[in-house]
């Protein structure tokens, strides 16, 4: 059982800030996913934990011990690399045994651990093969097995699925999830750029944003449970990153404030949003947000022309042309009978609306789920 504490972690490469002021605590047994667009420093953060990079500032503790200066092997962590990094000249067995032999474990213990890993990851019959004689999925499993036999307190995964094809990716994702359940007590830290992996695997998501050269920015955009990030994004960056297709954003101004309600004016559209009016002033420019899956079609007072339709089978993507708004409003609908150029009624429900202030910070949303027309 081990808790990871990061306090005030920053990392810069030369003059380029990569990570800034990260405070994070990963609970024992937690599955924590670092996710974010490329350049957000998620892999670097993982490498700081692993001991492959030095932080420029801050403290890293594992189980209450400061590990900043400990080499990787003494941190009780194991890592699965994106490229698998199997030793090409060693057999599968040797790949797993190599590290254990260097910790002077008795041969019987090594064999027992490898046998366990082979059973868990179904590597029977592959032990004497070389990595180049394995398929991509098999290599991936060997890389995970090599981490398991070390019996670490923390598993680190660096984009482990990105070199697999789509079908195998789904299957391996399930295997990693069940591995986490089986190994209960070990924490897992997992880096990915894929929000589906993040949403499906994580107990907790840490969403990182690129600093874009600014050393005063914050690296962590939001940390929390997957659904918390989905329903209550802390800011516009999180709202845009989580969810697919991405959230719609419309410029608006605050028209009036009520109790648990904010009335905004968006290009002539009057919308009532069910969220905290705290800190807002009438006339303030804001951004209205709504997820495509929350736009209701065929009801409500608003009308718009359908400019484009994408039919995916299970759902259709309907693009609605709003007067005075450059990008069309995207709606996800189960209906497949909507045609281009049709004029369609739609509604943006009050409880589904998000509101972001000019600096990107979101207004707190209630948890109540009453229905009600927004616009």
């Amino acid at each position: 059982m081990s808790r990871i504490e990061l306090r005030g972690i920053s990392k810069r490469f030369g003059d380029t800030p990569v990570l800034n002021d990260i405070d994070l605590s990963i609970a024992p047994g937690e599955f924590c996913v670092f996710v974010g667009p490329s350049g957000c420093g998620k892999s670097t953060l993982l490498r700081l934990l692993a001991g492959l990079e030095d932080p420029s500032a801050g403290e890293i503790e594992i189980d209450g011990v400061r590990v900043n200066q400990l080499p990787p092997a003494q941190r009780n962590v194991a890592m699965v690399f994106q490229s698998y990094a199997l030793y090409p000249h060693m057999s599968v067995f040797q790949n797993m045994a190599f590290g254990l032999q260097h910790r002077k474990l008795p041969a019987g213990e090594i064999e027992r651990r490898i046998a366990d890993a082979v059973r868990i990851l179904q590597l029977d019959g592959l032990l004497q093969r070389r990595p180049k004689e394995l398929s991509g999925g098999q290599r991936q499993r060997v890389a995970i097995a090599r981490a398991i036999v070390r019996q670490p307190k923390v598993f680190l995964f660096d984009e482990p699925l990105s070199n697999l094809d789509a079908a195998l990716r789904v299957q391996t994702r399930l295997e990693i999830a069940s591995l986490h359940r089986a190994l209960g007590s070990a924490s897992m830290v997992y880096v990915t750029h894929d929000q589906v992996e993040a949403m499906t695997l994580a107990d907790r998501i840490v969403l990182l944003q690129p600093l874009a050269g600014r050393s005063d920015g914050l690296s962590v955009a939001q940390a929390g449970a997957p659904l918390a990030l989905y329903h209550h994004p802390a800011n516009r960056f999180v709202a845009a990153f989580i969810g697919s297709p991405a959230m719609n954003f419309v410029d608006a101004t605050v028209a009036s404030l009520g109790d648990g309600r904010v009335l905004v004016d968006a290009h002539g559209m009057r919308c009532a949003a069910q969220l905290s009016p705290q800190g807002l002033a009438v006339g303030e420019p804001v951004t209205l947000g709504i997820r495509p899956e929350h736009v209701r079609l065929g009801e409500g007072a608003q009308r718009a022309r359908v400019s484009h339709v994408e039919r995916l089978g299970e759902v259709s993507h309907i693009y609605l042309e709003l007067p005075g708004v450059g990008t069309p409003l995207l709606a996800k609908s189960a209906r497949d009978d909507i045609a281009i150029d049709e004029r369609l009624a739609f509604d943006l429900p009050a409880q589904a609306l998000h509101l972001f202030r000019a600096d990107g910070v979101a207004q707190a949303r209630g948890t109540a789920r009453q229905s009600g027309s927004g616009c």
Partner: protein
Amino acid sequence: MKAGAGSRAFAPGAAPGQPRFPWGRIGYWAASLLFIFVSVFPLLYALSSSLKQGSGLFSPALWPEAPTFANYSGVFADQPFAQNLLNSLLVAGSVVSLSLGLSLMAAWAFGRVEFRGRGLLLILILSASMLPQVAVLSGMFELVRAFGMYDTLGALIIADLLLTLPFTVWVLVTFMRQLPKELEEAAAMDGVGVLTLVFRVFMPLLWPAMVATGLLAFIAAWNEFLFALTFTLSTEARTVPVAIALISTPSGFELPWGKIMAASVIVTLPLVALVVVFQRRIVSGLSAGAVKG
């Protein structure tokens, strides 16, 4: 891109669709055959002369009239040539293993770690290969004597490192740089020390480069003459190049050419065989050292 990259620059044969007399192709074959002949003929003639004896030696015919191995047995009978061969083998073998071991360690440092002064040190190492041997001769002589190594093989092994280390380091640094970073990181996660990393993870992956550089170092040490001539005195301590250079008749009148050619063939044939077998690796090793340098 490699094969036939230049064939159009200097293409043998006529332009397509234009049946002309193939001057280019004929020129190519003539030049190639001439080149092969000139390269190989001296060795063949040495082989031929080594099988001739007495007045037969003075006949320029390539095929000896009465082939004999008398020169070969003579070489071993007149002087401790077997000992000389063993010396050369010991010296070259030790030089190769020492150079490869030392350079492999250094190549990790220079190829994979960024540290201050790295570039300058690499330039200094490269310039050591420009050093004329005679420029270190008196200093080395003093050193060899001070350590009581005069007239021993140890002196030659140490001195020859000056000739091999610069390029073995240089070539192995080039190859070491190309190994994936993750492999080193995986080893770090496994908790292996840097020596284990270099010799048990990287060395097996670098074996083609090791073979190439090792062969080059072997040839350099096997062929070395000036140090071997200067730091040995007794015939028993000589390496083969010195032994061959100093073969003479007791009368000192005319050199025993038959025996000299026999000794030359003995020394050269294994080397040529080695080089022909490993020609691809040697060529890549030579060009890696030069292109990047």
